[in-house]
């Protein structure tokens, strides 16, 4: 999912932009307010990956260290307290580890170290920390259940978490936390909640390359490009308790889950959506989105208005979506009430709209961009290089 290319040229500069809901400090702007247009953030250490949750952000640096900011009321920032942070602060407890993967859920956080250890903190009321209890934690605690087994990824949803393990017996996905909508995938029936990781059934034969969780949804992407989803049903469909392959003739290279939709990025650079019947019309219910209400052969439908534009990256908030084109342009659509579309207003959109992100310096071009979404906000991390004159 991550291109993970390092900033090679010393002259290359990284820019971090944010917009949308900001009243918990999640935008990193050091202000407690929504922003309707992209805001350039004060200089941060070079970031390799972001993960945005309900109202907090986890940043992973190229030095494999972790910074967090935004809402901290459940301990999700891992700073040892329960307070919000308006500015990026390092997670001290993790400073002795090299962290390689992070995930921000609604009010909890997960961190994976280079040697495969996984740590969690934040809201634990549903067992989503995987620590065997229903207690919240304000500092990252090691999930001892996996013992010495190697965890590669963690994905944190609203009230549940997934972990991806790789080993000699193949890949294994584990689920813990709330299972009320089938999002754990651990049994044929819905389970209320589990506080210790349990193996997800039905993926044993699958070579899983990435996992994701958001809202009450879970997803796994196979190395062959198959997309599996489980949890709350999309578009009014029944909940699914075991991983279910999305029927499509396309092969996917990235998936992005919202609270009522999932986006898939195909190998050809097209974006498809499953669910999302209210995507872009939350504040205008009379208007109908004409996307995949029929669950016929193709469950997924192409996003309208993209024509021949090739897409290289996608992200989903709870009710909005973001993509990056091959030219480095950022487009957004969906719910816009908090300015999360970055278009200067609070309107909803059913088709992707171009976001105007100012060029900081006149003579520069963008070498790479990545997009990330929290529930009601958006981040773009991009590398720029001066033009040769």
């Amino acid at each position: 999912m991550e291109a993970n290319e390092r900033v090679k040229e010393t002259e290359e500069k990284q820019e971090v932009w944010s917009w949308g809901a900001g009243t918990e400090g999640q935008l990193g702007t050091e202000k407690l307010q929504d922003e309707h247009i992209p805001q350039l953030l004060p200089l941060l250490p070079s970031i390799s990956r972001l993960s945005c949750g309900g109202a907090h952000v986890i940043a992973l640096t190229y030095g494999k260290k972790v910074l967090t900011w935004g809402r901290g009321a459940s301990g999700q920032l891992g700073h040892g307290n329960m307070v919000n942070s308006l500015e990026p602060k390092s997670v001290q407890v993790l400073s002795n580890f090299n962290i390689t993967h992070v995930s921000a859920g609604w009010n909890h956080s997960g961190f994976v170290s280079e040697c495969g250890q996984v740590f969690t903190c934040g809201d634990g009321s549903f067992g989503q920390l995987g620590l065997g209890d229903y207690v919240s934690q304000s500092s990252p605690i090691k999930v001892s259940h996996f013992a010495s087994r190697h965890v590669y990824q963690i994905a944190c949803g609203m009230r549940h978490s997934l972990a991806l393990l790789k080993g000699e017996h193949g890949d294994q996905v584990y689920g813990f936390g709330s299972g009320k909508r089938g999002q754990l995938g651990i049994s044929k029936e819905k389970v209320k909640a589990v506080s210790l990781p349990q193996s997800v059934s039905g993926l044993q034969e699958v070579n899983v390359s990435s996992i994701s969780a958001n809202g009450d949804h879970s997803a796994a992407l196979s190395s062959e490009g198959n997309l599996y989803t489980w949890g709350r049903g999309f578009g009014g469909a029944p909940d699914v308790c075991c991983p279910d392959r999305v029927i499509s003739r396309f092969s996917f290279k990235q998936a992005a889950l919202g609270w009522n939709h999932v986006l898939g990025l195909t190998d050809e650079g097209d974006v498809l959506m499953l669910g999302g019947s209210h995507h872009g019309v939350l504040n205008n219910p009379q208007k109908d989105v004409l996307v995949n209400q029929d669950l016929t052969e193709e469950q997924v439908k192409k996003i309208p208005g993209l024509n021949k534009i090739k897409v290289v990256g996608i992200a989903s908030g709870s009710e909005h979506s973001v993509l990056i084109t091959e030219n480095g342009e950022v487009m957004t659509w969906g719910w816009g009430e908090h300015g999360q579309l970055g278009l200067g207003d609070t309107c909803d959109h059913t088709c992707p709209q171009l976001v105007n992100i100012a060029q900081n310096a006149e003579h520069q071009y963008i070498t790479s961009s990545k997009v990330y979404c929290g529930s009601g906000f958006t981040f773009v991390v991009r590398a720029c290089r001066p033009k040769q004159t």
Partner: protein
Amino acid sequence: MSYDDVEIEDMEWNEELKSYTYPCPCGDLFQITKEELKIGEEIARCPSCSLYITVIYNMEDFTDQKPKTNVEPPKQQPVAVA
């Protein structure tokens, strides 16, 4: 249009807000008080946005004189502060 239908048992009691709450996609919380539930209100609103949800519950569970009902008052979860 209601954003979602949510059963009361899936909502969390928030002592600070003195309300039952459920995550709102904006990042804030849908909220409804016991008093509102007592009078049959079924809409929980978010203070930060225009969205609202419909709460599914038995009014009788909240109209009793004594709050001793079969709706278990969600217990405050302990929090470990390092």
